[in-house]
């Protein structure tokens, strides 16, 4: 390539406005009609602008204000109403995941649920909670004949004692000598017991599948027998759950079998099909009915009451002889399984008639009265309700009698039998009562499901007739709709006060009551009384032998409301805090901050001695969350003098930070306008500081980001005003007061910087806010700064200059320098602007070649190229400092380009150089293409002075040299040659656009050479070359002269 010595580069003189005129396309007025106008309406909210689609109806409908937007949310998420996917509520995955049980039986029960919706807590969830609550470490006896053979050989055989000789003969006559007659009693630990039950379950299914249904039935009967036994009584509820699983299983098997046997031949079809899922009894063929009847007959002949109740079964065989044998085999004189077995296959009644259920359920309810042991009877009733609920939820007549009967068994609690049991097993009455609790809850839940208020009245009346006991009352409060309970809240609180505390500690009742009144509002006039009475009673809770805190706190007498004195004697703080947690929400919802404050004060006084608050962090956090949910006016919230001391109780870091986050988040969501309330601001600053100080080098990125976002969210809402402008309310003339406002704001930012120096995102926000302040000032003065505003702007620039080095991320730093420089220049602070640019250039050496951006290790080169381009274009607007050399900033930048380590596989540096050449050409014009308003740039300094042009030409030659050198080096492999051509083309293009082609410049030959080089190893299909050629020709045609010659010399 030719050296550049004999070149004489001169910039092509441009007339920008003429060119603009020539290039612009014709325009016409759109007459105000826009095709999208009907569909889109712009909605302005206080904080954001959102476009909401209203539908094609028209934009005249008023749009209700959308809820305050959470700035941390994704702005692209649209409201749920418009989202078509969320409209479809059926989610198959969530339905499947609700079945958490592992045994076969429970799953099948779920499948039989018809007519119950999600408001009914299903048995499966209750089941798991019972199994985990009622456990024992004692050994549990199990009597069964169906044990695996190795174990049987180990044990001696024991024949079950018969009730009389006659009966014993029969047993020996009829029983097989197979495994049916050998029954052993083992004492197992709880784990082994569970395993044994599972084995029984499996063997029941196996026998059934192998057509040994008789044996399967025997297993079911023996399992039900286990329910009579109340030794190891603490385990009874869990035992109930396990065994009823097996019975459900069995019931399902029978039902299924009968259904399969009842294949019907639909009219017109030739193949028999099974009955559909919801069949009526007339659809059942005779064979099915017969089988079903057989099963029921079989059960009816089981001797013992309880087994007869639970499973319900019948022979299944088809031939009469086996019918005969199987009937005779059912004379188990000691097999107590009837009740449970009958209930288990209740569903089979549907084969016989459609309306048998209700009758059968009522009959079985009455039968349960025959069970003497109250615990066994209670659970039998619960099972009955459960079966009833699962197959016939619409028949509810049996439910209330069940409950009434249960209540009447209370009189048995003092009987000898119960007392003996308690004595033998070392139980207290309250522990015994505790065992009843799941059964009672279940029965009441069944009653309360979709019940009316009248039902509640009935139930309450029945309870009052008998003894009001704590578990029952608790279950009532938990099951019925909160609205009903809340209506009668005062009555309930009286009942709670008066009830006996057996089986359930009283504070649990208060918690339940609290939950109800929070979920639904009690009548207005009753609210205060309720609060009063509850606290009065809570204060009387005593239990011997525990520390007692005495505190009296008087609230002011407010003539409209109330006066009350709280005397709180507390025993276990656990109870106290549980009650307070629930009732705090009630107070926050219905009362003012004064009550909340008093309550907080109370809690603090309780929690402080002995640092007991450390044990109750979850409750304290939940109290704060509940308060936040209901008090959204932050001025009020923070003005409660006990709020921050309460937060001080949370001394564990992670807990404190979590709570601070919640408060600030809530603040951001609910505070719609900017605030200048010093109380709020100070309090929030304190919280943000806590969060910020929590971050350290080990914090996760995510946490850092989250806290950063929260702090920024808070800072955005702050608009501190001077005190007198607050009083005057903000509508004072902006000219007078705004200056003070801005200074306050800057002062606030300085403070913020001091507090939040650890998080990059906050610093960036602060810097940009300050820049925005400066620009806002400029806007107010409309570009002509007064002395005062100029000083202010300089102060802003100084702030940025100091703060930017604290930012960690080098790329952010560079951008900020550039941005702040622009702001400074546009505000007339020229020396500050220069300082920024110099600092940016100095920082270039700190840019690494590779950085982790977006969690990927990427090269920074792409960013740098864009940055340099941006910088170059900025420099056009920057006037030179007269003390320095012309274009010294540009020279500095070009030198700084060498600081960055360019990669050798790309030619980005050359691209920047080429762009610099373009810039230099633009810098030589008489009038620059663009400039900042009210800022003189170089065109007024030099106005195309030939001396400047000469200087620029020197620079350009240097740059050209560099580029040519580089291109020469790209001459080895084909790959490099391609790059060479590409680069040559670029150089050609920019030179052509900006150079003056004339005798003096001597550029034509260079251009031709470059063109040829570009064509040699061109990439792509050469369309660009054709395009360029076209441009050259056009210009040649238009301007003529050297251009035309050039055009002729080029060939594609």
């Amino acid at each position: 390539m030719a050296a550049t010595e004999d070149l004489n580069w001169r910039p092509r003189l441009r007339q920008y406005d003429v060119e603009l005129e020539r290039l612009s396309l014709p325009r016409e007025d759109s007459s105000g009609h826009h095709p999208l106008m009907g569909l889109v309406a712009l909605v302005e909210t206080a904080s954001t602008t959102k476009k909401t689609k209203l539908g094609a109806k028209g934009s005249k409908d008023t749009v209700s204000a959308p809820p305050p937007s959470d700035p941390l949310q994704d702005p692209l998420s649209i409201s749920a109403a418009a989202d078509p996917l969320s409209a479809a509520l059926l989610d198959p995955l969530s339905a499947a995941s609700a079945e958490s049980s592992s045994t076969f039986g429970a799953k099948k029960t779920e499948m039989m649920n018809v007519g119950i919706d999600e408001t009914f807590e299903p048995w499966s969830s209750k089941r798991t909670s019972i199994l985990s609550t009622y456990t024992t470490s004692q050994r549990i006896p199990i009597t069964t004949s169906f044990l695996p053979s190795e174990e049987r050989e180990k044990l001696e055989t024991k024949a079950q004692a018969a009730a009389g000789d006659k009966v014993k003969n029969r047993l020996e006559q009829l029983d097989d000598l197979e495994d049916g007659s050998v029954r052993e009693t083992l004492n197992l630990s709880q784990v082994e017991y569970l395993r044994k039950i599972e084995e029984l379950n499996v063997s029941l299914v196996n026998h059934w599948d192998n057509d040994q249904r008789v044996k399967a039935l025997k297993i079911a009967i023996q399992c039900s027998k286990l329910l009579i036994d109340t030794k190891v009584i603490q385990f009874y509820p869990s035992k109930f759950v396990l065994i009823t699983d097996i019975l459900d299983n069995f019931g399902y098997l029978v039902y299924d079998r009968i259904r399969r046997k009842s294949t019907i031949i639909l009219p017109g079809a030739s193949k028999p099909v099974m009955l559909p899922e919801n069949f009526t009894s007339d659809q059942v063929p005779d064979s099915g009915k017969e089988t079903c009847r057989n099963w029921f007959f079989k059960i009816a002949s089981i001797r013992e009451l309880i087994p007869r109740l639970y499973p319900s079964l019948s022979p299944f065989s088809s031939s009469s002889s086996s019918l005969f044998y199987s009937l005779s085999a059912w004379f188990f004189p000691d097999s107590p399984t009837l009740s449970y077995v009958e209930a288990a296959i209740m569903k089979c009644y549907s084969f016989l008639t459609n309306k048998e259920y209700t009758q059968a359920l009522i009959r079985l309810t009455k039968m349960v009265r025959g069970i003497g042991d109250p615990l066994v009877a209670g659970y039998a009733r619960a099972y009955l309700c459960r079966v009833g609920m699962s197959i016939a939820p619409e028949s509810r007549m049996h439910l209330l009698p069940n409950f009434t009967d249960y209540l009447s068994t209370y009189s048995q609690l003092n009987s000898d039998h119960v007392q003996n049991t308690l004595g033998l097993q070392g139980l207290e009455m309250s522990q015994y009562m505790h065992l009843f609790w799941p059964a009672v809850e279940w029965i009441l839940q069944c009653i309360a499901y979709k019940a009316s208020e009248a039902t509640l009245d009935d139930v309450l009346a029945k309870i009052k007739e008998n003894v009001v006991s704590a578990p029952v009352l608790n279950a009532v409060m938990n099951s019925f709709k909160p609205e009903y309970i809340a209506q009668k809240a005062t009555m309930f609180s009286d009942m709670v006060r008066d009830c006996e505390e057996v089986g359930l500690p009283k504070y649990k009742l208060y918690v339940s009551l609290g939950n109800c009144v929070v979920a639904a509002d009690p009548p207005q006039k009753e609210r205060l009384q309720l609060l009063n009475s509850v606290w009065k009673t809570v204060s009387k809770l005593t239990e011997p032998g525990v520390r007692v805190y005495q505190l009296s706190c008087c609230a002011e007498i407010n003539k409209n409301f109330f006066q009350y004195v709280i005397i709180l004697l507390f025993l276990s703080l656990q109870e106290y805090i549980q009650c307070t947690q629930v009732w705090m929400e009630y107070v926050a919802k219905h009362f003012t901050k004064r009550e909340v404050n008093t309550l907080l004060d109370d809690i603090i006084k309780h929690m402080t001695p002995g640092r007991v608050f450390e044990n109750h962090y979850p409750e304290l956090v939940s109290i704060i969350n509940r308060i936040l949910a209901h008090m959204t006016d932050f001025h009020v919230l923070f003005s409660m003098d006990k709020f921050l001391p309460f937060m001080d109780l949370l001394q564990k870091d992670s807990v404190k930070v979590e709570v601070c986050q919640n408060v600030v988040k809530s603040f951001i969501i609910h505070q719609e306008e900017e605030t200048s309330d010093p109380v709020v601001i100070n309090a929030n600053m304190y919280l943000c500081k806590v969060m910020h100080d929590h971050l350290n080098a080990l914090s996760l990125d995510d946490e850092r980001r989250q806290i950063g976002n929260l702090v920024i969210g808070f800072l955005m809402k702050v608009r501190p005003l001077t005190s007198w402008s607050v009083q005057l309310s903000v509508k004072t003339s902006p000219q007078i007061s705004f200056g003070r406002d801005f200074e306050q704001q800057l002062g606030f930012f300085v403070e913020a910087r001091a507090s939040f120096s650890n998080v990059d995102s906050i610093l960036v926000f602060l810097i940009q806010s300050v820049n925005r302040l400066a620009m806002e000032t400029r806007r107010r003065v409309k570009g002509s700064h007064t002395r005062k505003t100029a000083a202010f702007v300089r102060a802003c620039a100084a702030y940025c200059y100091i703060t930017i080095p604290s930012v960690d991320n080098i790329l952010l730093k560079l951008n900020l320098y550039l941005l702040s420089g622009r702001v400074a220049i546009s505000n007339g602070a020229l020396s500050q602007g220069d300082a920024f640019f110099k600092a940016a250039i100095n920082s270039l050496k700190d840019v690494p070649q590779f950085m982790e951006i977006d969690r990927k290790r990427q090269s920074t080169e792409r960013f740098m190229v864009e940055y340099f381009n941006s910088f170059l274009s900025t420099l056009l607007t920057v006037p030179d400092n007269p003390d320095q050399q012309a274009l010294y900033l540009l020279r500095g930048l070009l030198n700084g380009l060498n600081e960055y380590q360019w990669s050798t596989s790309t030619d980005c540096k050359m691209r920047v150089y080429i762009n610099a050449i373009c810039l230099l050409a633009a810098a030589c014009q008489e009038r620059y293409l663009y400039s900042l308003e009210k800022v003189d740039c170089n065109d007024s300094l030099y106005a195309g002075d030939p001396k400047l042009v000469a200087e620029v030409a020197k620079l350009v030659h240097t740059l050209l040299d560099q580029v040519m050198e580089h291109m020469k080096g790209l001459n080895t492999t084909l790959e490099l040659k391609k790059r060479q051509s590409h680069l040559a083309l670029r150089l050609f293009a920019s030179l052509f656009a900006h150079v003056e082609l004339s005798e003096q410049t001597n550029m034509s030959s260079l251009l031709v050479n470059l063109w040829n080089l570009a064509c040699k190893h061109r990439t792509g299909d050469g369309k660009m070359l054709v395009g360029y050629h076209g441009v050259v020709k056009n210009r040649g045609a238009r301007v003529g002269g050297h251009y035309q010659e050039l055009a002729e010399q080029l060939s594609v």
Partner: protein
Amino acid sequence: MATLDIRLKRANKVYREGEVIKGALVVTSKSELSHTGITLAMDGTVSLQLSAKSVGVFEAFYNSLKPINLLNYSLEISKAGKLPSGSTEIPFELPLRPKAGKKLYETYHGVFVNILYTLKVDMKRPLLNKDMQKVSEFIVEYAPGEKQEEKEVKFTISPQSLENVKDRGRVPDFLVSGKIDTVNCCITKPFCGELTVERSSSSIRSIELQLVRVETCGCAEGYARDPTEIQNIQIADGDVCKGIVIPLYMVFPRLFTSPTLATSNFKVEFEVNVVIIFHDDSLVTENFPIKLSRF
């Protein structure tokens, strides 16, 4: 191997006098089956057994009363021939009519009296092959007749009302009251009633309903009345709550009960006992004779 089976059209195999029993013989065989005749016999018999009480154990063992034949009907299904392989169905129809002068009693399986109706199919095979047979039982019930009146019986059991008490001092103080809905029971409906334990000084272990059949068989030497238990249903388990009404409910088992029957040769009657068993194993029984009928 080949199988022979009787399949009746009715799933529940219950027939009334005068009806026609329809069904089919089902012969299944893998290969062709040759036979020398298939006959179907319908048989209804009352078999009586002597009770040990009346004539002594050995007499009862060796002798037996002649069974009374209620109906006997034989039908030749097919003369000698061959049946194809696979499953062959040969339908038949038999009228259910008793012998002259006899009445068809209901099917009843008891201890000393057994009323049994069977269908027996005989297939004679040529030499060197065993004959095949199959017996299938069916059930006979009475045709609809007049309904019985319901008769409610109230009862009270207390130490004073007991008979047959050896040592009245040992009897605990108790009072049980109740009622039986009707002692004229329909066999298809359950036996219902209620019972209330008003008070009891000794704790109760169990309350049971015992269904007893009383069979009377006659022979030359005399009649013997034998009560035997059919089933024992527990009504209450453990020490029940005092003062609440406990239901009595018992379903009559199908083959082991039949309507109360009295003929010149034998009698079949039923009774229900309410048994209260106390904690110390002493028991109190109250007896209620009942009359069962089909309608």
